């Protein structure tokens, strides 16, 4: 299961958590297995398994869900204490085994310390993993220096452990530095997404405004020029008055506040199909989508979505064009793609998604569906709907 979509930061945090657990857990398991191949004595292997489990338990504390305020104060110190105790026990067990490590930096003590550092990747954000890792190094090397010689395992500088700590520092710094460098582009990127919506909104509003101006002002001006000099007929005066009233009224061309409501469910349906690189080009009298009765609008949205889904899945094309044409009684919406096409006469009508998901819906509200398709040329579907369902 991939779980719900997350922000990039949250996703990265989950990725680092998985990496830390795989790194730490895998290292402990393989260190134990390699030790078994080197020294097969059951008692020491059994005890090593227990101490490795304690270290793993300490590492898992980092990923337990806890309030952020508690993590730094309680969880991280507790994990360090548990892992430190596990490391000390491991040192004692291995020192007393049949094949004790040559130094505190030898196998398998060094990988055990590396595993602890890998778990520390989950200690929190920013510098927290580095601080937790440094604390673990201090604890492990302190214990090694104090107890190792007494147990017959001399202390030695552990280069892989140091390199792992440096790697954690590098990763923290890398993401911090890059985060600072890309702060402005990331803000711009977030704004760009909003601009895309805004431009689309404005395009719809412009189309709406143009339609209104065309139907009112342009018509009125044409009437004025056609009338020529002379008295104004009362019908013309009434019409000009209504035009001036309309233009003075608020919101006649403004887009809806909710971007999802622009063009209603129809545009929302189109947006839902735009995924995996599939794009839809909108054209025509989009503003007329507003005038549809809700039942018609819903039916058109569902049918249109099905047409676009068909184009995306079956046509083998990455784009389609939707054109809205209005007439006094209704709308004709043309969905065209230049994909694989098909031969309608060769397809069982009962199996056509068009039959149920498209034709049935449109015909239910008194509309019509016409399909023009040809293999290798593309498919065009004309959805004709009335503005309102006939009583």
């Amino acid at each position, binding site marked *: 299961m*991939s779980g719900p979509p997350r922000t*990039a930061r949250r*996703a*990265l945090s*989950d990725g680092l958590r*998985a*990496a830390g657990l*795989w790194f730490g857990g895998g290292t402990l398991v393989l*260190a134990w*297995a*390699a030790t078994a*191949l*080197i020294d097969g004595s059951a008692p020491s292997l059994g005890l090593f398994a227990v101490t490795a489990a304690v270290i793993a338990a300490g590492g898992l504390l980092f990923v337990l869900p806890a309030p952020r305020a508690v993590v730094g104060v309680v969880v991280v110190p507790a994990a360090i204490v548990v892992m430190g105790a596990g490391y000390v026990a491991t040192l004692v067990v291995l020192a007393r085994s049949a094949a004790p490590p040559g130094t505190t930096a030898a*196998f398998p003590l060094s*990988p055990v310390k590396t595993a602890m550092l890998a778990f520390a990747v989950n200690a929190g954000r920013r510098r927290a993993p580095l601080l937790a890792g440094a604390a673990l190094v201090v604890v492990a090397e302190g214990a090694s220096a104090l107890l190792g010689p007494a147990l017959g395992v001399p202390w030695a500088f552990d280069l*892989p452990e140091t390199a792992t700590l440096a*790697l954690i520092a*590098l990763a923290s710094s*890398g*993401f911090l530095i*890059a985060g600072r*460098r*890309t702060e402005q*582009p*990331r803000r*711009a*990127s977030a704004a*760009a*997404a*909003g*601009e895309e*919506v*805004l*431009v689309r909104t*404005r395009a719809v*509003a*412009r189309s*709406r405004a*143009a339609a209104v*101006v*065309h139907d009112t*002002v*342009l018509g009125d001006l*044409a009437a004025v*020029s056609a009338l020529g*000099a*002379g*008295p*104004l007929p009362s019908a013309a005066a009434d019409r*000009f*008055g209504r035009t001036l009233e309309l*233009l003075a009224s608020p919101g006649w061309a*403004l887009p809806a506040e*909710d971007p999802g409501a622009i063009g209603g469910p129809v545009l929302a349906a189109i947006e839902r199909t735009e*995924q995996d*690189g599939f*794009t839809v*080009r909108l054209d025509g009298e989009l503003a007329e989508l507003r005038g549809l009765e809700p039942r018609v609008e819903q039916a058109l949205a569902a049918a249109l979505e099905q047409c676009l889904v068909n184009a995306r899945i079956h046509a083998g*094309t990455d784009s389609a064009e939707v054109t809205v044409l209005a007439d006094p009684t209704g709308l004709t919406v043309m969905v065209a793609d*230049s994909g694989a096409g098909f031969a309608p006469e060769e397809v069982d009508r009962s199996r056509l998604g068009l039959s149920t998901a498209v034709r049935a819906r449109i015909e239910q509200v008194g509309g019509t569906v016409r399909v023009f398709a040809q293999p290798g040329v593309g498919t065009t579907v004309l959805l004709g709907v009335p503005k309102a369902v006939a009583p």
Partner: protein
Amino acid sequence: MSRVSLAAREPLLLGAPAPVLAAGGAGLALVTAVAATALGRAQIASWPLEAAALVVLAVAGVAVVLLASPFRAPFRARSQAAVLALVLLAAVLDEAAQTGRNAVVHDDWGLAVVPVFLLVLATLRPPREVLAGGLVAVAVIAGAVAALSPSLLVPLPRAARVAIVLTEVLPPAIAAAALARTTMRRLGGRRPAPASPEADSAPSVQQETIARLEAAAIPLLTAVVAAGSVTAEQAERARAITADLRTALVADLARGWLAEAGFGVDDPDGYAERMTPEQRAALRTTVASLPLADFERPGTAAVDGLDRAATLRLSLPVAARPRRSRYAPLVPLLRAVFPRAELRIDGDRVLVQVDFAVAD
């Protein structure tokens, strides 16, 4: 498993650290190798081979720094193969340099530097290739250790030597793949949340339309209604206003997103209007990230197209020459959505050129 790398999926957040990680990782690997060589100098049987190993490692470091540069984005499969091949060659040479005098396998620097490179490459290639690269690395190192280190100070069976290699290299290899795969899966189908259009971010369409109508059409209609009659002059004027208004409305409807963003546009065939939303967003992000001389009129946009292929050139006058580190992340951002994208500084302007294909 996804076929996209984290750097390509989220270039600004997950791709941007790549150059820093590459440079730091290469440096860390070289320092580790030199330190391990110095600490284990008694185990070196052939100094020429050891020197060659260090030189090859340094070359691998330089290679990863150059190939992970944002100006060379995207990081290709052959780049991953080249870097890994060099690192593995260095590790094998190190093993060969210790043949006969290697005391313990655990302190061989190949086991420490290979994981560093695997983790550096984790964000640059798709998860499947990260895992494949890691497994190849494990196999090569294990094979080299099994073949070249038979005489250890503390004799170990071959299986134990291989197990030690697995302990050191396999977990980081899996961790690198887990980092890439988990992050990619969590990102899932995430798309940028659409921001609400801000009504005051630009004059509303209605205000613009009214302003245009108030210039001539509304006063004329108002005067006609008030007078209750039409003069010959008004009839003539109505004809002229109608023509102008119709032209303006057509131009308005034809105005594309680049013109809307303030660009002077030369795109007679409307190629730019057929860009994908992701391509438009990447260009908008690029433009908004630069210190433009005039944000209201960012510059000019020219598109040349033939059939389905087109090239867009943006010329963006800037107030100050942007630092290289400032515009470097924008190159991978553009290349994540355009098959070819260039960004360069030319005097007091930034030139952006992208190639794209449009649907029929």
